[in-house]
């Protein structure tokens, strides 16, 4: 039996190289700068960044589902909504909302388990619409919960005794924490056995199953993690908006944003959603005054990218130049091959 370490001389099997080391350093620096921002800039800037962080967290989750596990969900808004309502309910029971955000992630993971039993009965594109129906069911169920505001929603009041600037700062840091955890979580998850299993499943599900990969387990874990991430993001949305209404928090618009960010940025890569989220925020800031035209632009861009640029901006770039900042795979370096990063 050949162990991974038994490699012919002159060759090396590596996890990362110089580029990914620099990328790790760079990312830490960026996060440190972001963490410092509430002391340096106005709340409108941090407010925009909070939106960016929410979207990036959700998009990373959608990327994990669709890009790595092959599960295209058009129903992640279910967990965004459930997460927001979980924070609301927990705060009614005395749990501080900032803690509630993280607990909401857990709650959503728990709800996702029985949900997955139903959802996984459908495959491919039918799975996609099935998740949408499930999201609608949760939407309708929450509309009937009078204690949590019923159809018109409710406000989160337990933070109102905080100074607004302080509150926005705490919201910002929680958003940053959720986002970093989401992206970092994906990275760590994919570097491990799960990542290997998912790559095998993505390449050939039947073969992977025959090789002993528990396909169902791998997909379910990803589904639960994605639910947790979206749930936490939903909690952040509540904490940042201070109120929630079922029609908006369960809106399929969130999934639309996730899809756009991942598709344009680059599906199946960790860097893609980051780039995509930046592009999205830039477009939003530039065109927000144009009303529905900006949504039409987004939709049209999604169609064009789907046909012409299937690997997204980062994906196309990365394939051209063989560049990977956050390496989740192994690379083989021969004596004469260049550093893959």
């Amino acid at each position: 039996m050949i162990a991974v370490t038994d490699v012919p001389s002159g060759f090396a099997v590596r996890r990362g190289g110089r580029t990914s080391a620099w990328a790790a350093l760079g990312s830490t620096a960026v996060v440190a700068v972001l963490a410092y921002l509430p002391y340096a800039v106005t709340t409108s800037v941090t407010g925009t960044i909070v939106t960016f962080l929410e979207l990036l967290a959700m998009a990373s989750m959608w990327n994990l589902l669709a890009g790595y596990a092959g599960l295209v969900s058009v129903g992640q808004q279910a967990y965004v909504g459930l997460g927001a309502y979980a924070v609301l309910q927990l705060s009614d029971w005395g749990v501080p909302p900032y803690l509630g955000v993280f607990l909401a992630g857990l709650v959503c993971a728990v709800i996702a388990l029985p949900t997955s039993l139903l959802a996984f009965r459908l495959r491919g594109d039918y799975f996609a619409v099935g998740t949408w129906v499930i999201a609608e069911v949760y939407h309708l169920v929450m509309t009937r919960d009078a204690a949590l505001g019923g159809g018109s929603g409710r406000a989160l009041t337990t933070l109102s005794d905080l100074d607004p600037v302080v509150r926005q700062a705490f919201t910002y840091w929680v958003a940053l924490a959720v986002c970093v955890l989401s992206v970092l979580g994906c990275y760590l998850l994919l570097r491990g056995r799960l990542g290997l299993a998912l790559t095998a499943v993505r390449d050939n599900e039947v073969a992977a199953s025959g090789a002993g990969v528990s396909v169902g387990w791998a997909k379910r874990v990803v589904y639960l993690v994605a639910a947790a991430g979206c749930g936490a993001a939903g909690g952040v949305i509540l904490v940042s908006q201070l109120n929630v209404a079922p029609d908006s928090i369960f809106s399929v618009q969130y999934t639309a944003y996730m899809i756009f960010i991942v598709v344009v940025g680059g599906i199946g890569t960790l860097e893609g959603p980051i780039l995509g989220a930046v592009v999205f925020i830039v477009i939003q800031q530039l065109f927000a005054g144009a009303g529905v035209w900006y949504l039409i632009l987004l939709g049209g861009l999604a169609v064009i990218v789907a046909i012409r640029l299937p690997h997204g901006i980062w994906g196309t770039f990365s394939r051209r130049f063989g560049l990977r900042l956050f390496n989740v795979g192994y690379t083989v370096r021969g004596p004469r091959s260049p550093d893959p990063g």
Partner: protein
Amino acid sequence: MIWVNAIVQGLLLGGLYALFACGLSLMFGVMRIVNLAHGDMAVLAAFLVYSIIITTPIGVLGATLIVLPLFAVFGYLVQTGILSPALRTGPLSTLLATFGLSIVIQNALQQGYSADTRALDVGSLVSASLHITGQLSVAYLSLITFGLAIVVLVALQLFLSRTGTGRIMRATADDPEAATLSGANPRHVYGIATAIAFATVALAGLMFAMQSSFSPSIGPTRLIFAFEAVVIGGLGSLWGTLVGGMVLGLAQTIGAQVDPAFTLLAGHLIFLAVLAFRPQGLIAARRTA
């Protein structure tokens, strides 16, 4: 007696849902594409007819006769221009392309017509009903819709089983590459399938718009109903779509009798129940989808 009324309404509603669903079922059966803009097409058709009616002396019937062939052509163009390239690009691309299309259509409609609800004026036909007994009456529009659904399904069945093009379509659905070896141009075949799908969903949208009010944002809900009808009935079965539609309609009308707020949820719950206990649908298809 109100329960009998609810049951009859539910069954007839199934006809409308079958009309919505048969195009979705066809596109998936032939091309393995789920058109996320399916419902929005229906709404687009309704708005087009609405515009024609209020700006020209052409009536509803005339407008329908204009819009349906137009949608067939539109479907062919969408297939060859967007969906076929997307099919070649990758498995995710068609889903993303149709999702993008859905967003574009909804927001373009909103831009052009505002978010207000409209209705298609068919005069006295809206409220005219057939009185069967003292307490049971059935709206003519519901009967006509159901009748149209049957006609469309029969026509589709005959098309697929008796005509050369239908045969080629079934062959392409089975094995696209082997079909090309027999001379079938897959792009053309897919174009025809999409044309049929768009025309039928346009008809569904018009029949719906005659009975209820509509607005730019109701497309996704129509898609979900169509999808639920297909899954409940059974993937790959054309008549299963009618059965699925009727079961869905029944669930909704009976749910509405229990509590009007329960209408939609009842339908979704039946869908989930079928998914949980009989995922292959009520009518198992002859072949796997």
